[in-house]
C-alpha cells in the first residue's frame, strides 16, 4: 500500500549509481533501455508534430497552409522519423533490452558494451537526420525513389540517408545481441519450449534486423554516392535502372515492417496470457509462426512495385507469396482468440490495448491481403487506402502494442503503478481517435484520393475533416500517458515484484530489479505460461 512515510529504498538499477556519467557510460541493459525510452519518445513527438502539420493542411481542399514543396517535406520527415527512429527500435530497444535478459534468466545481454554502442549510434544517426531536416528538410518521401532522390531533388537527401545508415547499424547490433543472448545466455532449465513468446518474437525480429538492414545500408550509401559524384547506377538517363533501387530498398523495407510488428505481437502474447490467466493456445504454433513471418517476409517485397514497371510475371510470383505471408499472422490472431476462450479475463489497461491491437491489426492485415491482389492494387495503389492500411497495422497494431507493453511492464521498470483510471481513459481516447482518423482514409482511398498530395477535390473534404478531428483526439490519448507516467515516478503507488500475478522470470525479481537482475541464477522447472500453478500471492525469488 502507498504510505506517506519514505522507507529505506532497496538497492536497484536506478539508484545504484547517480550522476550523468553513470548513465551515459552504463552497460546495464536496463539503463540502456531507459535511455532508449527517452530518446524514442522524443522522436515520436517530433514525428507526431509533422503528422499534425499534415492533418492541418488537409483540413481544407486547397493547398493553403503550406506550399506543395513544403508538404512534400512534411510527409517525408514524418515517414522517416516514424519508421526508422520510432517504430523499428521501439519495442526491441526499450522493452526487449529491458526484459530479454530477465526473461531468460541472465545477468545482462551477451554484449553489454555493444548494447551501449547501439544506443550511441541511434543518437548520432537520429541527430544527423534531424539536422538534415532542420536545415532544409528532405522531400523525396521516406522511400527515396530514384532518380528524384539521386539527381533532381534539391534537398538534404545525403544527410537523411547518412542518418538512417548510421541508425541502421544500431538496429543490426541490437538484433545481433538478442540472437546471441537467446541462444547462449538462457538460465538452466530455460529450454526453447519454455521461452516466453516475447523472446521468440524478438528473436524473429532480430533475424530480420541482421539479414535485411545491411542491404538498405548499402543501398542508401549508393544513393549518397550517386548524388555526390553524379554516378548513374540508379539513373536511367545514365544507363541505370531506378527499379533496381526499389528492389534493393524494399528488400529491407518490407521485412522491416515485420521488425516493427513482431515484437509487438510478442507483447500481446504475454498480456493475453496474463489477463486470461491461461497458457497461450498453441504455444508452439505461435512461436513457429514468428519465425515463419520472419522468413516469408523476405520473399514478398516487390508487392510495393506492382505498378512501378516490373514484369507482370514477377508480380504474379510476389502476389502469391504475399498471400502466403498473411497465414502465420492469422495463426497468431486465432491463437490469441482461442487463449481468451474460457479464460478468466481482467480488463486492466494493458488488456484493453491488447484487445485494440487484435481488432485493429486484423483490419490492417486483411487490407494488406487486399493490396496483395494485383487487380485491386492497381486501383488503390498510391491512394489513401494504402495509407490507411499501413497506419492500421503500424499505429492500430504496433503503437498500441507498445503502449500495452509500457503499461504492463511499467511497474517492473520503475517500481511504480500508473493511475489506472486515467490509463483506461487514454486507451479509450486512443481507440476512438485512431479509428476516427484512419477509417475515413480507407474510403477516401477507394474513392480515388491520392496520397502525398497537399490539395484535393472538394468532395473529399468531409472525410478529411473527420480524419483530422480524429487525429486531435488521438493526440490527447498519447499526451495523457506522458503526463501520468511522469507523475507516477514520484506519486504513483509503489509496485511489488508482481502486481499482475503474471508468470515469468521477470516477475520473480523485485521492482525495479537490482543491477545484476537475480540474486541467484534461477533454475527453471516450470512450463511457459504456467498459470494453472501460479499462486494468487506474489512470489519472489532470492531477495
Amino acid at each position, binding site marked *: 500500500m502507498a504510505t506517506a512515510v519514505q522507507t529505506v529504498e532497496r538497492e536497484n538499477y536506478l539508484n545504484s549509481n547517480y550522476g550523468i556519467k553513470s548513465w551515459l557510460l552504463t552497460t546495464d541493459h536496463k539503463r540502456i533501455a531507459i535511455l532508449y525510452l527517452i530518446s524514442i519518445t522524443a522522436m515520436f513527438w517530433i514525428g507526431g508534430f509533422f503528422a499534425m502539420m499534415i492533418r492541418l493542411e488537409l483540413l481544407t481542399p486547397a493547398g493553403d497552409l503550406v506550399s506543395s514543396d513544403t508538404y512534400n517535406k512534411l510527409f517525408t520527415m514524418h515517414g522517416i522519423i516514424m519508421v526508422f527512429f520510432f517504430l523499428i527500435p521501439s519495442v526491441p530497444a526499450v522493452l526487449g533490452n529491458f526484459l530479454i535478459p530477465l526473461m531468460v534468466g541472465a545477468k545482462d545481454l551477451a554484449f553489454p558494451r555493444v548494447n551501449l554502442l547501439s544506443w550511441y549510434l541511434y543518437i548520432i544517426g537520429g541527430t544527423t537526420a534531424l539536422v538534415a531536416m532542420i536545415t532544409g528538410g528532405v522531400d523525396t518521401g521516406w522511400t527515396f525513389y530514384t532518380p528524384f532522390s539521386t539527381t533532381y531533388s534539391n534537398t538534404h537527401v545525403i544527410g537523411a540517408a547518412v542518418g538512417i545508415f548510421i541508425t541502421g547499424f544500431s538496429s543490426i547490433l541490437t538484433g545481433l545481441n538478442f540472437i546471441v543472448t537467446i541462444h547462449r545466455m538462457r538460465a538452466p532449465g530455460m529450454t526453447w519450449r519454455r521461452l516466453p513468446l516475447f523472446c521468440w518474437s524478438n528473436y524473429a525480429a532480430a533475424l530480420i534486423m541482421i539479414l535485411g538492414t545491411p542491404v538498405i545500408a548499402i543501398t542508401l550509401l549508393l544513393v549518397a554516392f550517386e548524388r555526390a559524384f553524379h554516378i548513374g547506377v540508379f539513373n536511367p538517363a545514365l544507363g541505370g535502372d531506378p527499379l533496381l533501387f526499389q528492389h534493393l530498398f524494399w528488400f529491407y523495407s518490407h521485412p522491416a515492417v515485420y521488425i516493427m510488428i513482431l515484437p509487438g505481437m510478442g507483447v500481446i502474447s504475454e498480456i493475453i496470457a496474463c489477463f486470461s490467466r491461461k497458457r497461450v493456445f498453441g504455444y508452439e504454433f505461435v512461436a513457429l509462426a514468428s519465425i515463419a513471418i520472419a522468413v516469408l517476409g523476405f*520473399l514478398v517485397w516487390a508487392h510495393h512495385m506492382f505498378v512501378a514497371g516490373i514484369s507482370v510475371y514477377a508480380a504474379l510470383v510476389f502476389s502469391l507469396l504475399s498471400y502466403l505471408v498473411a497465414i502465420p499472422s492469422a495463426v497468431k490472431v486465432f491463437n490469441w482468440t482461442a487463449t481468451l476462450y474460457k479464460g478468466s479475463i481482467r480488463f486492466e489497461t494493458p488488456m484493453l490495448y491488447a484487445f485494440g491491437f487484435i481488432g485493429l491489426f486484423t483490419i490492417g492485415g486483411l487490407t494488406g491481403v487486399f493490396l496483395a491482389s494485383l487487380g485491386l492494387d492497381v486501383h488503390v495503389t498510391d491512394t489513401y487506402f494504402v495509407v490507411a492500411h499501413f497506419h492500421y497495422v503500424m499505429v492500430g497494431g504496433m503503437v498500441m502494442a507498445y503502449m500495452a507493453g509500457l503499461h504492463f511492464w511499467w511497474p517492473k521498470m520503475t517500481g511504480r503503478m500508473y493511475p489506472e483510471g486515467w490509463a483506461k481513459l487514454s486507451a479509450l481516447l486512443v481507440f476512438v481517435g485512431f479509428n476516427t482518423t484512419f477509417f475515413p482514409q480507407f474510403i477516401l482511398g477507394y474513392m480515388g484520393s491520392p496520397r502525398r498530395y497537399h490539395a484535393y477535390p472538394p468532395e473529399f473534404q468531409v472525410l478529411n475533416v473527420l480524419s483530422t478531428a480524429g487525429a486531435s483526439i488521438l493526440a490527447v490519448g498519447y499526451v495523457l500517458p506522458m503526463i501520468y507516467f511522469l507523475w507516477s515516478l514520484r506519486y504513483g503507488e509503489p509496485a511489488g515484484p508482481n502486481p499482475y500475478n503474471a508468470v515469468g522470470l521477470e516477475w520473480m525479481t523485485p521492482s525495479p530489479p537490482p543491477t545484476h537482475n537475480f540474486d541467484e541464477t534461477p533454475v527453471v522447472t516450470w512450463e511457459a505460461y504456467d498459470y494453472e500453478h501460479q499462486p494468487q500471492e506474489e512470489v519472489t525469488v532470492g531477495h
Partner: protein
Amino acid sequence: MANHSEHDYVGHIIPSKIYYVIWAILMIGTAITVFAATLELGIFNIVVALLIATFKGTLVVLFFMHLRYSTKLTMVTVIASIFWLFILFSLTMTDYITRAWSTYTGR
C-alpha cells in the same frame, strides 16, 4: 567456480600442415582461375570461374575460419547467409529475366 585444471577450454588446435596444404590448394586454384579465363568457353566462363571461387571460398571457411571444428549453430549461420543471398539474387532476377517476355509491340 569450475575446477580449472580439469576444465579444458582451449579450442581445437589444428596441425599447421593442414594450413599449408590449404594455402597451396588456394594458390593453385587462383592460377587455374586465371588460366581458365583465357580459354574461350562462352557461357561457361563464368560458371567455371564461380565454381573455382566457391571451392576456394569453402576451403577458407572450413579450415581457416575453423567451421569444420565449430558448432552446428555456426554452420547454420553460414548456410543462412548463403540462403538469404540466394533469395535476394533469385527473386530480383525473376523481374529482370521475365521483363522481355511481355513487351508491348503496339497498341
